[in-house]
């Protein structure tokens, strides 16, 4: 019988530790599939974040270098400058990318660093237990914004992807979602485009993926996907903001 669905070679045979309904496992799988399909396993290096995906090295069967919280783009810069012919990507959450690592992220993008950032936005700090993130939406309750995020107290959701799209060093910037199978496929397409543009050496590439966190949103996985599509995608519109390829 013909096999029509298998585990990508770039994924280790390990069950994901992520919560039921979490988007990370879907995104991990997309990345692994792409590494197989593009035949780049022997030249790709992953920099996972401090955050829920800190254990990404337990799943990706590729060279992986841990980063301190927020420092992914600086470490990726070190790798890429030392090994310009390798493909280097960071895998970061919203706190990592857009709070503690804002400087590293913006400046890597502005230098046109030939790396890719996969930015998983679930609007909360997941691993530490659901605290407010820079991307938490107005009114959204978290463990450190128990009255709902108020613009006058906690400021506004930070749209770092939109900011980065303005920078001349950024070559490809897109925001996608994993809310539906079609959007998952669109995410894969965007990730592929980002890797391709990195290989062409055109500049910094970024794919923000909106992803559900039912555990910390305190809803069922089904409701989380609904919230993702109906609320989060309104705050963070999907699309390709830049493609100079």
């Amino acid at each position, binding site marked *: 019988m013909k096999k029509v669905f298998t585990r990508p070679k770039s994924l280790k045979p390990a069950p994901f530790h992520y919560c039921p309904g979490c988007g990370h496992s879907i995104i991990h799988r997309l990345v692994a599939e792409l590494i197989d399909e593009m035949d780049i*396993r*022997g*030249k*790709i*290096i992953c*920099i996972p974040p401090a955050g829920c995906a*800190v*254990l990404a*090295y337990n799943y*990706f*069967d*590729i*060279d*992986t*270098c*841990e*980063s*301190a919280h927020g*420092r992914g783009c*600086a*470490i*990726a*810069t*070190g*790798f*890429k*400058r*030392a*090994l310009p012919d*390798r*493909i280097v990507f960071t895998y970061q959450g919203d706190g990592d990318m857009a709070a503690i690592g804002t*400087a*590293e992220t*913006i*400046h890597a993008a502005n230098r046109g660093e030939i790396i890719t950032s996969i930015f998983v936005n679930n609007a909360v700090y997941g691993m530490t237990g659901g605290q407010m993130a820079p991307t938490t939406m107005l009114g959204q309750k978290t463990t450190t914004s128990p009255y709902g995020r108020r613009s006058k107290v906690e400021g506004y959701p930070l749209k770092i992807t939109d900011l980065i799209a303005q920078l001349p060093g950024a070559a490809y910037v897109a925001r996608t979602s994993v809310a539906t199978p079609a959007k998952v496929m669109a995410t894969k397409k965007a990730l592929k485009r980002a890797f391709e543009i990195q290989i062409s050496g055109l500049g910094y590439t970024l794919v923000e993926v909106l992803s559900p966190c039912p555990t910390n949103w305190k809803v069922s996985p089904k409701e989380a996907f609904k919230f993702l599509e109906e609320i989060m995608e309104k705050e963070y519109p999907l699309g390709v903001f830049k493609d100079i390829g």
Partner: protein
Amino acid sequence: MDKIEKILMKGTDAIGEAAIQAGCKCYFGYPITPQNEIPEYMSRRMEEVGGVFLQGESEIASINMVLGAAASGARAMTSSSSPGISLKQEGLSFLASLELPAVIVNINRGGPGLGNIAPSQGDYYQATRGGGHGDYRMPVYAPASVQELYDITMKCFDIADLYRSPVMILGDGMMGQIVEPVILHGREDIELPPKDYILDGAAGRPSRIVKSLILDVRLMEEHNWKLKRKYDLMKRDLPLHEEFMTEDAKMIVVAYGTAARIAKGAVKRVRANGFQVGLIRPITLWPFPDEAILNLTKKAKLVLVFEMSTGQMIDDVRLATRGKIDCEFYGRPGGVVAAPQEISRIIERHWLQWELS
């Protein structure tokens, strides 16, 4: 480099050139006085030798760029001065745990806080106690001449590779700015362990992980003991010091770096007045030359520690001498550089007070 040449060189340039000759492929740094001549030198030279120079957006970014380059297998370095070194501590802790080689230069300035840009030794504790979080150490070298800056910088890259550890060069504004003749030489070829940990894409081999997250406490404890065993080897093999007129000395002055240069002048002066005083200069601040200091002070009656701080290395001198000899202290913190006359007066005062004649 085969030809031996002696040229006049500034301390910061000697550090830069030694790094290049040692095969440093990547330099990442951020401007801060008084060490800006290092990134400036590297920005010019790296282009010439086909290496990487990049000015990071911060000290934090720079040390993490070093981390990435080191994990890729390249010889990498960064330099900064006190407030900037504070920012690099997170990265130093990671480098220590990840067991990645890197060379970090601290041109120590006056502090705490923003302090000033004058030569100081106020960062001794930070340098020799790890500095960042967690249970780690790192070798710290304190050169006291431009030639030594050159030689030690070159050596540090090998030490870093041999032990898979960050290594610090602790200088100060004086060491950085001083201009002296230097004999430039190439790197001695020594046998280094294979870099079987590097990440360069898992082509034709199993994938590798460079990580310091060890959630299982028993495994973390094992990692801590593994590092400890490495630090024990460093303690056995790395201590370096210089002795000056110590043979018959009744009083031993202990000083490092710029303070040792000043103290040496003072020792020469008091010798001329008939006082039997010698100098011991720790070259490695960690591991500290405990044994040499203990042996030397067996015959002496008094130790005088001179530092350009309110007294930090004196703790290590006391530990080394195990309470077997009295230790006096003289310090000039805040960026003040004492003249040899000032130190020779202090030496003579202690000599008379302790009735050493």
